[in-house]
C-alpha cells in the first residue's frame, strides 16, 4: 500500500542568530492509511517538530515530505494551508480552542478556510460529531464554561470536521486527569479503528505510547528506535 505521507531524509534546523540548532535530522518515515503511530521522546528531543513537519506546519530545511506521493515540502503557503485544511487535523495538549467562539463555532471553524465546494454538509457533520462525542448539549457554550475533557472532545470534533486522513495529537491527555485521559485515548483509537483515520500521537508517557501499533523514539532530533 502506498504511504499517505512519507518523510525522506528530513532535517529541520533553526537559527539562533548565526548559530544553527538542528531540531530533527535524518528522519525517514512512512505512514500508511489507518496507521496508529506514537512518537516518544523526552522534552526537547524534537518530537513536536517532527509532528509539525508531518502536519505541514513547518517546511524541512533538508529532505522531502511526500503526501500521496507528491512532494509537498516546497509548496506555497496557500497550497500548504489548503492541504492542512483538507487532510490534516490537529489535537493539542492545551486544546487550543478559540475562547470567544462557542463549541459549535469552534468545530465549524475549519470550514471557513476551505476554498471550493464541500462534498458533505458541515452542519450535519458537526451535529453527528457532537452527538458522537457526547457534547451536543454543550454546543452553545464557550470553551471556558465546559470541562477539560469536553474541551478536548470539542478539539477532536474540530479536527474531524473536514474528514481528515491524518490526526496529529500533541500530548492530548497532558492536561487531563487519568480517567478523562483514558476516555480521550479510547475516542482517538475508535476514530482510527472505525473511521480509518491515521493517528500520529506525540507523547512522553510510555503507557500512552504503548496503545499505538507503531512507536518511534526520538533522541536529540534523531530517530533512535522503532517498535512495531
Amino acid at each position, binding site marked *: 500500500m502506498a504511504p499517505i505521507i512519507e518523510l525522506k531524509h528530513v532535517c529541520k534546523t533553526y537559527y539562533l542568530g548565526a548559530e544553527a540548532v538542528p531540531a530533527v535530522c535524518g528522519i525517514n518515515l512512512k505512514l500508511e492509511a489507518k496507521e496508529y503511530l506514537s512518537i516518544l521522546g523526552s522534552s526537547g528531543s524534537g518530537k513536536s517538530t517532527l509532528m509539525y513537519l508531518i502536519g505541514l*506546519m*513547518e517546511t524541512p530545511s533538508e529532505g522531502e515530505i511526500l503526501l500521496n506521493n507528491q512532494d509537498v515540502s516546497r509548496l506555497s503557503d496557500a497550497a500548504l*494551508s489548503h492541504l*492542512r485544511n483538507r487532510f490534516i487535523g490537529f489535537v493539542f495538549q492545551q486544546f487550543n480552542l478559540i475562547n*470567544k467562539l462557542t463549541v459549535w463555532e469552534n468545530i465549524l471553524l*475549519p470550514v471557513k478556510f476551505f476554498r471550493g465546494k464541500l462534498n458533505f454538509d458541515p452542519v450535519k457533520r458537526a451535529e453527528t460529531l457532537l452527538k458522537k462525542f457526547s457534547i451536543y448539549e454543550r454546543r452553545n457554550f464557550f470553551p471556558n464554561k465546559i470541562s477539560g475533557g469536553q474541551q478536548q472532545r470539542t478539539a477532536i470534533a474540530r479536527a474531524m470536521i473536514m474528514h481528515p486522513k491524518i490526526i496529529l495529537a500533541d500530548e492530548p491527555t497532558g492536561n487531563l486527569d487519568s480517567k478523562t485521559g483514558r476516555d480521550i485515548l479510547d475516542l482517538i483509537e475508535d476514530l482510527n479503528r472505525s473511521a480509518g483515520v491515521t493517528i500520529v500521537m506525540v507523547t512522553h508517557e510510555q503507557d500512552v505510547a504503548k496503545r499505538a501499533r507503531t512507536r518511534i523514539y526520538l533522541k536529540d532530533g534523531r530517530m533512535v528506535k522503532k517498535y512495531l
Partner: protein
Amino acid sequence: MILLLKDALLDFQRNRVRTFLTALGILIGVMSVVLLIALGLGLKNYISDQFAKMGANLVMVLPGNVFKKGQNATSFGVGFSGGAKFDEKDYQALQKIKLADYVVPVYFKSIAIEAQREKYFGYVQGVNEQAFPLLNLTPIIGRVFTKADVATKSKIVVLGYTLAENLFNQEPKNALNRQVIINSQRFKVSGVLEKKGDREMDSAAIMPYTTAFNRINPNKDFFSIYLGVNNKDQVEQLKREVTAVLLKRYEEDDFSVTEQTEILSSVNQIFDIINSILIAIASISLLVGGIGIMNIMFATVTERTKEIGIRRSLGATKKDVLIQFLSEAVILSAGGGIIGLVLASLIVFGIRTFFPAAINLLSVAAALGVSSGIGIIFGVFPARRAANLTPLEAIRYE
C-alpha cells in the same frame, strides 16, 4: 468575507470600550472635517444669497483696488481698508453719467439704536431714495423716504425688519411713527422693510444720507457708491464710464468699480483658501486617529498570536489572516467615520435654524473614503505582521 466581518464584529463586541476609544479618534477627525466643510459651504451659500438679494445689474464703487492685477483674491481685504474716501463731489460727478438709472451714495456705520428702553446694535445706513428700488427694498408698513426727504434732511428712518422686531416687542409694525434714538438724536420711523434674510440690511436704520451728515457722519464721506442700470447689457459700459469719471480725481489703485459677481467670486476664493487650511488642520486629528488604530491593531496582533496560530493550523492562509486583521482595521475606522458623519449631520441639522450650513455629497464621500483609507493604510502593517507569523511560532506563542 461575511464570516470574517462577523468575526471582527464579535471581537469588537467583546472589547466594547477599547473599540469605542480606538474609533473615537477617527470619529472626531471625520466629524471636524465634515463640520468644517459644512460650515464653509454654508457660509459661501449665505454670502451668495446676500449678493443675489442685493438686486441685479448693480455696480459698486469701492475704495482701494479690490482686484489688483497680478494678485490673488487675498488682497481683497487690503483693498477695503485703504484707498479713496468718497464724498459728495464723487456722487455728483457720477450722477452726471446719463447711462446710470440709479446712483446711490452709501454711508455705513455700526451703532447702537434705542427705542422704548430697548437697545440694539445695528447699522446706520445713509443713502438716497434710489437705494430702495435699486436694492429691492419694500416696506411692510409705512413708506420709504423720498427725494424731498433727502433734500430737506428729514429726521426719519426706515427700519430693517429684525431691528424693528427687537426694538418694538417683536412687533415690527408697531414701530411705525414711533421714535428711535441714534447717537442721542431722535428720528421718526417712517416705515419698516420686509425681511430680506440679510443680517446687515435687516438690522439697519436707513436714513437720508443728508440727515446722517449731521453728527452721525460729520466727515460727510461715503463708504461706497452704488450705481444701477435697468438694462443688464449696459453694465460693462456703465463700469467703463464710472471708471473714467473717477480717474479724473483718483489714481487707478484708489478705487474699484465692480459688479457683485466679481466680489462674489473673490469672496468664494477667500473662503476656499480658509476652508482648505481649516480642513488641513482638522485632518491632523484623522492622522492621529489612524495612528491610534495602528497601535491597537499591533497590540491585538500580539494578543491574538496564539489564535492566529490556531487558525493557521486549521487551514487559514496568510491572505485569510491579512484580510481578517485588515477588515477589522477598516471596520473600526469606517465605523468611526460613519458615526462621525452622523454626529456632524445632527449638528448641522441643529444649527441650520440660524446658520445655513450644508452637507454635500463630497463631504459624505470624503468622510467614508478617507476613514476607510486610513483603516487600510494604518491597518496594513499590523495585518502583515500577523500574516507573516509562521504557523508554528504563532501556535507556540504564550
